[in-house]
């Protein structure tokens, strides 16, 4: 424990001798450390030069600047130092003024040194607690700052340049994620496996916060690297799942849909690990959720075999992929946006450019939700096939 640092302010020079005498043991053993000033002005100068002071013990009646004026100035210093005033016995009016100006405690003259010792320890304890709180507050602010940086990094790993492959004319693609207030776990991804196959991933990590963000980063990398080996969607999910289960100690999981669009034939082969099925939007205005074999979410069952489904896309048809933040967006009556409402919404939009579809759905969801804060990220990806 470092010594408690006390500044004694009094215009009577005798007090310094008395204090040094009475507390000689504590001074010798470095429990207490005293400094002395003889009026408010020199006390203030000492505090400015020594911000680590814990406690000021001040007389009220002094020349140049009295104890009450000093109290006011100490408040302006914005330091954690606590002030104990010493006043004549019965001088209740000054004592009240001092307390109202933020004095922590008071003593009366003649000073009872046992009482002063107690008061010093009690006050020093309080100052210690305040310093601790301030430190913790600063640490929290630093953590918050790091979380903000984490959120930015997480957003930045999602591909955001559109059109993503300017030379490729067989499809239009657009994707967007509107994050909920906390760093979360939705992501989308897309990549060309070769000249004629486009891989599409949409996924949602359970829960929020830094654990979800870490899990998301791992999952995204795993899925992409397995997918780039060119295996079928079902095999890709199975392999990524096995790798995730091995390292999953906290029962996190990911819902994911991975599909491969053959740009030459329009065939879309996809596999679903517990994710919302995609919606097929055709130029004729029909809208339907695709049938998927309900595979289990990734990260839980090591030996699960994921099945693939197939679909033939006709020119002009759109695949609408989304996360449950869309269908589970809530309004102020806690009603869900819901899958039927999404289908109606897509029907009214029709098969237009992916960017317009996403903008229109987002508008509708936000209009529905109003000011109600959303718990989940809102993520959508649309691919429109041209042939």
């Amino acid at each position, binding site marked *: 424990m470092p010594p408690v640092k006390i500044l004694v302010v009094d215009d009577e020079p005798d007090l310094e001798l008395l204090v040094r005498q009475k507390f000689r043991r504590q001074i010798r053993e470095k429990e207490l450390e005293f400094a002395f000033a003889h009026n408010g002005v020199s006390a203030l100068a000492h505090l400015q030069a020594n911000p680590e002071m814990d406690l000021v013990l001040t007389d009220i009646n002094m020349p140049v600047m009295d104890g009450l004026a000093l109290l006011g100035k100490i408040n302006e210093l914005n330091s954690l130092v606590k002030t104990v005033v010493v006043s004549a016995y019965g001088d209740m009016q000054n004592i009240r003024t001092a307390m109202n100006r933020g004095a922590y405690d008071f003593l009366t003259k003649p000073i009872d040194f046992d009482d002063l010792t107690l008061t010093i320890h009690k006050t020093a304890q309080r100052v210690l607690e305040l310093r601790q709180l301030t430190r913790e507050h600063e640490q929290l602010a630093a953590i918050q700052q790091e979380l903000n940086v984490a959120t930015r990094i997480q957003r930045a790993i999602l591909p955001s340049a559109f059109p993503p492959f300017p030379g490729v004319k067989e499809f239009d693609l657009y994707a967007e994620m509107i994050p909920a207030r*906390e760093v979360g776990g939705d992501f989308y991804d897309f990549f060309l496996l070769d000249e004629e196959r486009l891989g599409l991933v949409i996924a*949602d*990590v*359970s*829960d*929020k916060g830094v654990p979800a963000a870490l899990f998301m980063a791992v999952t995204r990398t795993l899925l992409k690297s397995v997918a780039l080996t060119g295996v079928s969607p079902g095999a890709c999910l199975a392999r990524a799942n096995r790798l995730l289960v091995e390292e999953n100690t*906290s*029962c*996190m*999981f990911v*819902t994911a849909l991975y599909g491969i669009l053959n740009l030459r034939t329009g065939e879309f082969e996809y596999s679903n*690990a*517990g994710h*919302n099925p995609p919606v097929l939007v055709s130029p004729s205005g029909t809208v339907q959720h695709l049938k998927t074999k*309900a*595979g*289990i*979410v990734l990260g*839980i*069952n090591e030996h*699960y075999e994921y099945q693939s489904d197939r679909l033939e896309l006709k020119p002009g048809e759109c695949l609408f992929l989304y996360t*449950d933040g869309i269908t*589970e967006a809530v309004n102020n009556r*806690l009603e869900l946006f819901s899958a039927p409402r999404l289908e109606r919404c897509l029907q009214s939009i029709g098969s237009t450019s992916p960017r317009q579809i996403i903008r229109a759905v987002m508008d509708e969801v936000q209009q529905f939700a109003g000011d109600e804060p959303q*718990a*989940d990220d809102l993520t959508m990806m649309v691919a429109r096939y041209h042939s």
Partner: protein
Amino acid sequence: MQFSEDKQGSVVIVGLQGRMDSNTARTVEEKMLGLIERGEHRLLVDCAELDYISSAGLRVFLATAKRLTQTKGKLVLATLNDDVKQVFDLTGISSIFQISPSREDALTQYQQEA
């Protein structure tokens, strides 16, 4: 989110009421793991008044079930409403749990074992 607790024989019946999402799931997780720490290892979760469950809520059930396998315990979920059941089905997670249509039926699952 409300949380009730009742005991029938060696089975602790936990009643959940309200919405189990990322805001409330952690509290439920602490309560469930607290029960297990206390030595309870037969948990029956009555979801009759559970209005909504998000993935964060599912994770809590998975974590509880995992902890219970370590203590050779057992978790049964009972009386899920249609919306909640659908979330279990769509995520494939219903295959992992014992899910009972009623509290009474759930209780028999433990008797068979005992």
